[in-house]
């Protein structure tokens, strides 16, 4: 036994020695993980001649390398878009691959300088877009936006998109990301439950609280939320503040302005939302549920309201009872002094598609986007995945499920009053970690509105002071 112990100690000693020796040796090995600057230079891109039918100058027989995120939307919609491309360029070889973890698959290829030509950068393994832009890894999509639409005569691609689409993919005024699915964020409820009980969705905050009281008296919890991802609740709070104080409330937050989170509008909104915490209108145990569990409680009728984006309907498909008829509505107005009307709702383009800056067939990647952004491409997408595309009017005439129909209507009612914020795209950490944690404490009743906003502001100040985050500004 004594001998084996000695061996163990020697092993450790040698391991320590190896660690020390490894330092100088590292230089020799560095080329492996850090990549090599000389590879993947920008020359040798496929380029064809521009013409009316080929406005981006795609080389007709150049291969197109595509990586799709295989998640909620599946991959069939993408194959249909590729088939459209193939119809236009029959000589092109289209290489389609669908993966679940984009980052693990593509990070080495970005470092190596040999990325694919077209990436659907989505899902839990999404590569941070702010980081990609900061490192110059993405191609500027301006040529695509200024190219003529594939099937809307006389219009440029950018003129066929829903409002906010271009902005949602822009960093410091340049567009690097095409967000293809249009998402509406609001408060969801079961139309059937409300009809059965004779309740009506409240348009002002006081009425909302009165309704909550009624719902609680009926033995149902008025609210639940995605407890382990409490940032879902930051959306209605910020929405309430934006409607109260106008779009500059969100712009200040996006631009990391000092005191943006503790503005009067944010204070009013946080105070208002604190009411549902104080009056115990939140389903018991919600903080310990994850998004699936809480959304299922809501589908079971144990809670009346939940905050979510319009992916909710397809996410909950398997557990939603027949005739549940989920519907989305804007956040209630705080009062008559609100800058935006009740109908104003947060809508934004999501589901990011990018063309890497070092893509061999950069033009082909953009041309595929132009096919996606055609009327035909958009209609096909909506039909296949029951989600809106950013192509304006492409959902007309497609039969939509109940929830999505309500989202389309909410969007139409909102019109030019629609709003959005993008700090979560610029600084992933701020929303996903810092505001998230602050929301968790607030909606569990452990912090006051003032403490909640102070925690968010502390997070924003932390990012603002951190020089390792590239800062973005927006003015519209």
């Amino acid at each position, binding site marked *: *036994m*004594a001998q084996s*112990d000695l061996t*163990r100690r020697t092993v*450790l000693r040698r*391991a*320590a020695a*190896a*660690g020390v020796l*490894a*330092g100088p*040796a*590292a*230089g020799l*090995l*560095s080329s*492996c*993980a*850090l*990549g*090599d*600057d000389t590879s993947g230079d920008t020359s040798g891109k496929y380029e064809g001649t521009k013409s009316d039918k080929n406005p981006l100058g795609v080389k007709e027989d150049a291969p197109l390398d595509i990586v799709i995120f295989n998640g909620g939307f599946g991959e069939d919609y993408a194959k249909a878009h590729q088939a459209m491309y193939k119809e236009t360029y029959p000589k092109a070889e289209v290489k389609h691959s669908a993966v679940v973890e984009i*980052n693990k698959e593509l*990070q080495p290829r*970005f*470092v*190596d*300088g040999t990325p694919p030509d077209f990436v659907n950068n989505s899902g839990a*393994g999404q*590569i*941070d877009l702010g*980081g*990609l832009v*900061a*490192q*110059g*890894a993405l191609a500027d999509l301006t040529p695509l936006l200024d190219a003529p639409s594939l099937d809307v005569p006389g219009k440029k691609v950018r003129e066929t998109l829903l409002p906010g689409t271009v902005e949602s993919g822009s960093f410091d005024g340049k567009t690097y990301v095409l967000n293809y699915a249009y998402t509406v964020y609001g408060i969801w409820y079961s139309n059937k439950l409300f009809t059965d009980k004779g309740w009506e969705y409240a348009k002002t905050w006081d009425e909302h609280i009165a309704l909550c009281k009624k719902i609680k008296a009926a033995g149902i919890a008025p609210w639940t939320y995605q*407890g*382990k991802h*409490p940032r879902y609740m930051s959306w209605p709070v910020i929405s309430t503040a934006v409607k109260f104080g106008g779009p500059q409330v969100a712009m200040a937050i996006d631009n990391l302005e000092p005191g943006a989170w503790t503005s009067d509008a944010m204070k009013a909104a946080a105070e208002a939302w604190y009411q549902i915490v104080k009056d115990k209108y939140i389903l*018991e*145990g*919600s*903080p*310990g*549920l994850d998004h699936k*569990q809480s959304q299922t*409680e809501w589908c079971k009728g144990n809670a009346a309201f939940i905050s979510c984006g319009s992916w909710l309907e397809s996410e909950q498909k398997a557990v939603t009872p027949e005739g549940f008829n989920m519907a989305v509505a804007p956040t209630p107005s705080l009062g008559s002094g609100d800058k935006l009307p009740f109908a104003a709702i947060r809508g934004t383009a999501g589901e990011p598609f990018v063309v890497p800056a070092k893509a061999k067939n950069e033009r082909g990647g953009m041309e595929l986007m132009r096919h996606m952004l055609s009327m035909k491409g958009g209609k096909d997408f909506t039909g296949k995945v029951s989600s809106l595309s950013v192509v304006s009017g492409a959902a007309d005439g497609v039969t939509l499920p109940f929830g999505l129909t309500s989202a389309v209507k909410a969007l139409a009612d909102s019109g030019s009053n629609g709003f959005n914020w993008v700090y979560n795209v610029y600084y*992933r*950490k701020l929303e*996903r*970690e810092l505001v*998230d*944690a602050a929301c*968790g*404490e607030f909606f*569990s009743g*452990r912090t006051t509105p003032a403490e909640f906003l102070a925690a968010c502001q502390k997070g924003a100040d932390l990012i603002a002071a951190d020089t*390792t*985050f590239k800062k973005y500004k927006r003015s519209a």
Partner: protein
Amino acid sequence: MRHGKYPLLLAFLLPPLALYGYFVVSPYAQSFLIAMTNWQGLSPAYEFVGFDNFKRMMGDEYVWNALLNNLWLLVLLPLLTIALGLFLATMLNVGGRGGRSTVTGVRGSGLYKVIYFAPQMLSVSIVGVLWAEVYNPRSGLLNSALRALGLDGLAKIWLGDPAYAFWAVLAVMVWANVGFYVVLFGAAMQSVPRDIYEAAALDGASRLTTLVRITVPLLWDTIQVAWVYLAILALDGFALIHVMTRGGPNFSTDVVGLRLYTEAFGDYKWGYASAIGVVMFFVTLSVTVLSLRLTRRERIELS
């Protein structure tokens, strides 16, 4: 025979050493280098920033918070697991009072062994998902059982409450690991001569006295190994926590491994993440060396 020894040894040793060097030592060595850069992991571009990443770490309250949680785990996980493991192993191997002449475990010890060891056969992610459901505050096994017993006051939000989340995760870590140490200690106990236990029993020693005065000293070597393994495990804890809580609520279950992962795969600060990794490398190494040193004792020669 003698002169043919070395080629044979080399033939067996070199391939694994080469693989170890390429897949283990080389990445480690590279991380030391990357820790001195501001590499962001998406392009080949980087600059050397010297010790900036390490300085940044000194002022990063989230890293300190995570490290503190790791230190709590470092103290509690080995202590609880070894104590529980020793207790269970004693009961299973020498705790029985049934037979007169032989030293045996309690009745049904074979079945218990299987039950205790079962978690060892589950992968960490399955353990995490399983317990996340058990801790579900509304329909989970734990709260349902408490409510069925009329103990509604004890039903908590567990993973959703910073006051309990850490302890809930710690309990799962102990649960998942104790089975292995029950078997390890049990095997070690088998090598302890039966007559020592018999003599103790004849002298009227209680189970507790037997455990403290006989089993622990005779198993010291094994306990020492267990301590080192569990200490290394406590400094990690990444996989289970990533599945169960992702460090929340409000960073109450955050560990350094999770910080590192978030910095690398969330915010693409690979230089900084590597610096965290390098620090953890030295912390783990020191803890291992230290615990081997501190637990060194005179060994008892058996027979």
